[in-house]
Each structure stands twice: as structure tokens, then as C-alpha cells.
């Protein structure tokens, strides 16, 4: 031993790093990604690839040439944003719209606030909403492309769109079990609730996230829609339909649980999840958009600093 290392304690470190956490999120997204590619084919693969590659490239370029701190670039985190953005887009989204989404997500929402850990809004969701209001036609084109496993291609409004326009009766005969397994017709992230939930369970088992935010969203959506549905099932859709349709599961499991833009305490997470669930149902029932998960998460992102001020861990020896 030529040199002795001398540094302060602790001398050992847990094996979890930012990159290992992001890797776990990517692994957790894999079941849903695989299902979407199987059913939507090359077109979906293209959306995923354009989004992922451009997000990483933009992050790297901004760190290197704008901030002059290439060491700040977190490829794994940008890759997660890229995959999530792609999963929130229709499979028919033209590549250049995907690219604009990536530039907005990384360039505007993330890097302009200082990069990793500094952004107020979830980049993928903010980009999805930006694209939705900028390109409403392309962003609601739910044509189904030819997948590796072929199904009768259908196109048309999503179930939520149907319910929004024609009332709950239009979706009353829905087979919920089928929605749970396979629900072609929305964006890639909405195809299989089961695949998303498998990823969520993986994240819980790996202790990457805690379940409180997600469970709070589910419980609130179920409770609010349950009450409305019980009052008037002709007008309002029921709890099971609301839990399984649209981007709720993707949003609750993977977007609302983003560390950077969610509260740091478990109780804060419960409040945050309650807010998201309530807003989702208000938008779905009374808003002009059929789907409200993205808006709900963005709005609640803004409340995170307040929630973090209100909820703290209990301190030892203090009341």
C-alpha cells in the first residue's frame, strides 16, 4: 500500500446510484414497451427511438455547449424522459412532432430550470400537453398501425372520448377484463394496464418508489367516480372504467411518482395523489378534454413546494 486514503466517515456506501435507479425505471417500463411494439409494430418502435435518442442528444448538447458542463449530463434520466414521452404519444405522431416534443421536454422544461433535479414540471408530461395544444389533430389521431401480432385495425375516438361526447351509456357494455389486458386505441402507454402494473410492482420490490402517491390517485379516482356513478350511472362513468382507461395507470405509476416533481414525504405524497385523482375526475367529467391525467399532474406539480413545506419527517425527541 503506497498511499493511504484518508477521508471522513462513513467509509461505505449503499449500492443504489442515480443511474441504477433510472435503470430500474427503464426495466420497469419494458413490459409496456414490448407490448406496445408487438401490437403497433415498426411505427411505434420509430416513435420510441426518435423520442429516446433526441432526448438524450438534446440533454448532452445543452450540457456541453450551452452550460459548458458536460459532466452534468444524465443520459439515464434523459432516456427515461424520452421513453415516457413516446409512450404518451399516438403511434402515428410524425417524427418531427416527436422531435419538437423532445426539444420542449428536455430543452425548455428540464434544462432551462438547471437540469436534473431542478425542474418543476415533469418534462414528458409537459411536452405531451405542449404537443396536444399545438398539434391537436395529430395528437388525437388514434389510427392503429400494423403490429407484429395483427389485430383488426380500427380507428376512431378513444373510449374516454366516446364517454365524453356521448355519455356513460356509450361505454356501458365494456368488458373490463379485456381493458385490463389489452386496450388498443390510445397511445402506446395505454395499451396494457397489466404490463404497466407489472412494472410498478417491480419498482416497489426494488424500493425505487413508495406506493403512496399511486395508491392515493387510484383511491381518489375510484372514490370520486364511485360517488358520481352511484348518483347517476347514465351520465357518469364508473370507477373501474375510470381506473383502467386513458393514461391513468401510466400517469399514476410512472409520471406522478417522478422524484423530482413529487413531494418527498409519504403523507405529502398522499395529498399530492389525492389532488391528482380529484383533478383527473373533474376534468374527465366536466372539462372540455376527454382525458385529464396530464393536466392534473402538471397542476399538482406546481403545489409540490407547498406540500413539502407542510409535511416533514417527525424529528427525534421533538413534538
Amino acid at each position, binding site marked *: *500500500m503506497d498511499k*493511504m486514503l484518508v477521508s471522513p466517515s*462513513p*467509509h*461505505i456506501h449503499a449500492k443504489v446510484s442515480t443511474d441504477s435507479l433510472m435503470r430500474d425505471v427503464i426495466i420497469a417500463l419494458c413490459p409496456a414497451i414490448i407490448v406496445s411494439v408487438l401490437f403497433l409494430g415498426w411505427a411505434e418502435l420509430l416513435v420510441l427511438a426518435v423520442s429516446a435518442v433526441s432526448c438524450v442528444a438534446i440533454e448532452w448538447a445543452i450540457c456541453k455547449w450551452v452550460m459548458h458542463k458536460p459532466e*452534468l449530463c444524465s443520459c439515464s434520466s434523459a432516456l427515461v424522459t424520452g421513453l415516457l414521452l413516446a409512450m404518451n404519444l399516438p403511434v402515428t405522431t410524425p417524427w418531427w412532432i416527436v422531435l419538437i416534443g423532445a426539444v420542449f421536454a428536455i430543452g425548455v422544461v428540464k434544462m432551462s430550470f438547471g437540469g436534473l433535479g*431542478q425542474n418543476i414540471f415533469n418534462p414528458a408530461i409537459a411536452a405531451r400537453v405542449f404537443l396536444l395544444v399545438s398539434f391537436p389533430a395529430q395528437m388525437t389521431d388514434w389510427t392503429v398501425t400494423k403490429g407484429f401480432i395483427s389485430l383488426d385495425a380500427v380507428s376512431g375516438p378513444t373510449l374516454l372520448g366516446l364517454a365524453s361526447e356521448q355519455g356513460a351509456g356509450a361505454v356501458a357494455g365494456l368488458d373490463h377484463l379485456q381493458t385490463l389486458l389489452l386496450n388498443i386505441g390510445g397511445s402506446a402507454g395505454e395499451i396494457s394496464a397489466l404490463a404497466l402494473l407489472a412494472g410498478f410492482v417491480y419498482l416497489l420490490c426494488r424500493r425505487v418508489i413508495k406506493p403512496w402517491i399511486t395508491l392515493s390517485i387510484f383511491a381518489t379516482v375510484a372514490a370520486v367516480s364511485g360517488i358520481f356513478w352511484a348518483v347517476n350511472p347514465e351520465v357518469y362513468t364508473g370507477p373501474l372504467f375510470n381506473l383502467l382507461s386513458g393514461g391513468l395507470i401510466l400517469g399514476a405509476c410512472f409520471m406522478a411518482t417522478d422524484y423530482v416533481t413529487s413531494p418527498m414525504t409519504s403523507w405529502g405524497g398522499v395529498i399530492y395523489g389525492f389532488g391528482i385523482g380529484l383533478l383527473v375526475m373533474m376534468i374527465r367529467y366536466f372539462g372540455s378534454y376527454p382525458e385529464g391525467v396530464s393536466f392534473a399532474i402538471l397542476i399538482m406539480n406546481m403545489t409540490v413546494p407547498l406540500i413539502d413545506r407542510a409535511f416533514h*419527517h417527525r*424529528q427525534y425527541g*421533538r413534538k
Partner: protein
Amino acid sequence: MSKLTFSIGGVHPDDSKLSKDCAIEVLPLPQTVYVSMNQHLGAPAKPLVTVGDKVLAGQVIAEPGGFISAYVHSPVSGTVKSIGPRKDLAGNPAVHVEIAVEGDEWVEGIDFSNDIDVNIKLDREQIIERVKMCGVVGLGGATFPTHVKLCPPPGKTAECLIINGAECEPYLTSDYRIMLEKSKEIVIGAAIMQKALGGCPCVIGIEDNKPEAIAAMSDAVASLPYEGIRVAVLAKRYPQGGEKQLINAVMGREVPPGALPIDAGAVVQNAGTALAVYEAVQKNKPLVTNVLTVTGNCLPVSAQHNYLFRIGTPISFIIEQAGGIPEGAAKVISGGPMMGKAIANLDATTVKGSSSVLYLSEESTRRWKESSCIRCGRCAEACPMGLEPFLLNRLVKAGDLEGLEAAAVMDCIECGCCLYSCPAGIPLLDRIRPAKGQVIGILKARNAKK
């Protein structure tokens, strides 16, 4: 038996108790010992010998330098060669008495037999006086003078004596070995302290990763005639052996900020301290020996040891006796990997509280490269004091001392859980530790104005 644990924070590092099956061996005498005057919490001791004096092992060579201080005894027989400043483990100067070893003669009156003396003859005051005269200090890390802890201030009573056998630091096995090999002595030591504290109940807390120690200590308790002593099984969780955490685990109480354990009715003593108290009170032997572990993840188990050493033996001598610094060692640590100190100076000497020589490989001690906080909340989740290290880090960077004080930075026990658990490799404790010093500065300045 249900497992007790503390209620806030904590982490679960791999316990790496590699040397747990290495029986205690007696370390040979070195040629020279260096006895530090600063090996307890509080004021340094004042030397009573001069250069050229002949001393016997067990002879007093320094007296307490204040109320919170301790006697220091010569661990060997020989001649005092020098008295003066010498660098300690961290490279800071402290007064040491250098003694050249000649033979191994002890002062009169020490009982060296292995007979176990169950009968506690001394009364309360005599016990406390004996513990003080024998220089016993807490051997769990803080080296707080034991006799002070055994005299609760007026108006305070001890409701529970907790014997700390948690040994929650990974790698360390010295407490484990004494609990196996000296079980009865530790229980008698506990009974002695119980008597000194007025007969409060006593709980011996041991983590569940040491089932043999739990069995041995339970047997010892059952075979001895004392009332009100029991063994409690603790969950394996760091920092279970922290004084505040242990009180919370065993008694379900919390020590308020700025208060002492006795304010919550608790007195916590380490298992090694209980053994030292037994030897002092029943055998009249001052604290001049202790057990330390030589271990590490780059050292084959066959080369690991639990040594009974004379306090003042140079670290370099122990390393040499144990076969030298192993291939692949990057860091030599005195103490556990969570709170121990990296040794900057191998010529430094062992002190009463020395618990290990730990070798860690470069790979195992590597930290992540620092990157941005991702607000994952792991540091706050891990903090056993319920603090928010990510916030303290931001306040330190902003230089906001008032903010730090309001965020309870002074509650930090420097256990290292925050830095251990941070996935972004942010050196949280490295920044918080010096900030505590600065906050003490403003607190003192404020008190001076009043």
C-alpha cells in the same frame, strides 16, 4: 421474543462480521507504549509521572483534568521515556506518556484469577469511587467517563440501565466476542452498575444477527442470582447502538434535544464498559486492556483477529503482529465503517476506546461521483434523528447558519446514514459536520451577549 428497534430512519448495510469466529487472543507486549492523556471525552488528564520514573502496570500515571475527565494508568511496567505532544490517529497533537516496556510487573492488589466473583461487596459510593479510580470510560465509542454516568444529577433518577450489545457497526466483533467469552463477567458488571444506580431494571440489548451472543448472555443472566436483568433482542439495523436510538428501541422513549439520556430516565453503557466495571470492582483491575478487531474485506478470515491489547500499543505494532497491511487495502480505519476514523498516521497509538483496525479495499470504500440531487428523499428517510439532510446541504451551501439552527442541525449525531444512502453521491455529512461547528459558534456568541 419480539425484536425491538428504533422508530425513525436507519439503514441496513451488510453486517460483514467476518471475524466473528476468531476467539480473543492476547496481543504480545510491544517494546514501547504511548499512553494518550486525551483518550476520554472531556478535559485531558494531567500526567503525574516525570521522565525517568519507573512505573508498574496498573499504576496511576495521570489524574483527571476536570469533572468530566478520567484517571489514566500505565498499561505496562517500564520506564517513562518522554512526556509530550504526539500525533493521534487523525494527525492532531495530544500529550502522550512514552513508556519503554521492561518485563510485565503489576501493582499489588489486582486479582488475576479467572474465578468469577458473583458477590458484590462494595456499596454504592464505593462502586462509583472504584470505577473512577480505575479510569473506566465508555467503550462504545464516545469514551464518556463512566463514573459520571453512574451519578445522576440531583433530581434525576435512572429508571433503566441499558447494556449496549448491539454492535450495529458492520465488521466489528469485539463486543460479540466478549459477550460470548465473558458473558458472566458482563452480567455481573451490569449488576454492579445497577446497584450503583439504585437498583433500576437492566436490559441487555443485542442485535438479532448475533444469536450465539443472545444465547450466551441469556444463559449467563439465568445462571446468576441478580434480579431485574434481562436480554432484549434488537432488530439488525444501523444505528441501533446509537445511545438515543437504543433508548428509543428499549424504552420507547426519546431524549429531547439538548437533554441527556438521564433526563429520559436512561443510562446506557456498552458491553465492554460492563466488563471493565466488573474487572475494576470485583478484581480491582484498572482499565488498561481492551479488545479490538483486526478485520476487513481484503483480509482472509484466517488472518483476522480479536486481540486483547494493552491500551497505548501503537497501531503499527498491531498491524505488524497481524501480518502487515494486506494486499488491496486502500483505507485503514479505527472503528467501524460508518463512524470510524480513517487513520492518517499508523504510528498513532491505541486508546481506551479503540475497537478495531479495519482494512477496506478501494472498491468497497468508493463513493459515487457527486451529481445533482434528484429529490429522492432517501437521506431524510434514513436520518435516525428525523432531519432533512438535503435541506441542511442547501443551507450549508447558502451559508445560512440561522436556517441550519432552525433545521435542527445540532441534533445530527453524525451516524453517516444520509451520505451512505445518497444515490447522487452528495457528501451530505461532510458538509453538515463542519456546519455544526459554525452553528456552535453563533450559539456561544449569543449566550455571551446575554
